[in-house]
């Protein structure tokens, strides 16, 4: 009896099921083995690391005076971050942090662009764990820079008690600033990246799944309207490409800003 109900529930048309959080949970690739934790996002992030490594290693090998196409692509990526982010935001003494910023930018950009590359089509950083580790990396970097500059207590004193304010403000300001530096910054970095990629992926899923559902429906009106949904998906794909690179830029920009703030003497 119960099995027939289950069978009926499966055969009955459940209507359109909107994409949700469940679409971000991938099953293990090797179930039942010791490497059960290997999933598609994990492999994609490893592939991204390899791609970034190959891109910069091969591009920097020749170092021709007149660059070819590939070398030009590598050099303009590097120059964009070096001049547009590191030099303009950090200012004096920025050279030390250029490699970190370029690596972060390239890794995030490649991982995000996986969201629209066929066969992968999953933005790895939509899983909260990946951007959280990246945010912790930049958290450690800016805390390390600040502590090395002013010492442990000196740094936190300069964060919590910026000079030049009336005394009665400090009880209010000090906990907020401490929370800001220790918790809010890494979490907002990670959350911004995750939520952007998550929302973009959901949007693409909604348009493509919805378009497919409308196309396969018997209703003629839905069939006629389906191409618009699919065309919307194509348009949104290029919009996503823009958002994905923009988010990588914003992550790098904010990291550079936090580094600059930790480096400066005044708060």
């Amino acid at each position, binding site marked *: 009896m119960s099995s027939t109900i289950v069978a009926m529930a499966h055969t009955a048309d459940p209507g359109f099921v909107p994409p949700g959080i469940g679409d971000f949970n991938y099953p293990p690739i090797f179930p039942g083995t010791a490497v059960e934790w290997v999933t598609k996002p994990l492999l994609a992030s490893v592939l991204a690391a390899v791609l970034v490594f190959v891109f910069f290693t091969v591009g920097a090998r020749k170092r021709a005076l007149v660059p070819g196409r590939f070398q030009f692509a590598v050099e303009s990526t590097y120059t964009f971050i070096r001049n547009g982010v590191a030099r*303009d935001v950090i200012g004096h003494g920025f050279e030390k942090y250029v490699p970190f910023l370029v690596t972060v930018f390239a890794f995030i950009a490649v991982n995000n662009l996986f969201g629209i590359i066929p066969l992968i089509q999953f933005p790895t950083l939509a899983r909260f764990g990946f951007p959280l580790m990246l945010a912790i990396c930049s958290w450690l970097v800016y805390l390390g820079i600040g502590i090395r500059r002013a010492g442990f207590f000196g740094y936190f004193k300069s964060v919590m008690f910026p000079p030049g304010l009336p005394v009665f403000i400090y009880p209010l300001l000090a906990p907020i600033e401490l929370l800001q530096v220790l918790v809010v910054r890494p979490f907002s970095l990670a959350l911004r990246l995750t939520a952007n990629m998550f929302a973009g992926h959901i949007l693409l899923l909604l348009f493509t799944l919805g378009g497919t559902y409308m196309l396969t429906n018997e209703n003629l009106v839905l069939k006629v309207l389906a191409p618009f949904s699919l065309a919307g998906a194509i348009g949104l794909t290029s919009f996503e490409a823009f958002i994905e690179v923009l988010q990588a830029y914003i992550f790098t920009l904010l990291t550079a800003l936090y580094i600059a703030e930790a480096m400066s003497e005044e708060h």
Partner: protein
Amino acid sequence: MDPQKFTLAGPLVYAIAAVGPGIGIGLIFAAYVSGVARQPEANNILRPIAFLGFALVEILALIGLVFAFL
């Protein structure tokens, strides 16, 4: 949340959360555009500032998005 169940509460949370950041991002880019229109050579100085403000405002809408799915 049950992934199969679709309620209107989540979308409404995000809809309300998107109002303020929508206005804020509009103001930021309006100021950026008029700044560049007045002084095109200031584009490189204004761009990081504009995107910084954009990122700080956008996070509010994104927190709303996360709460919509919780």
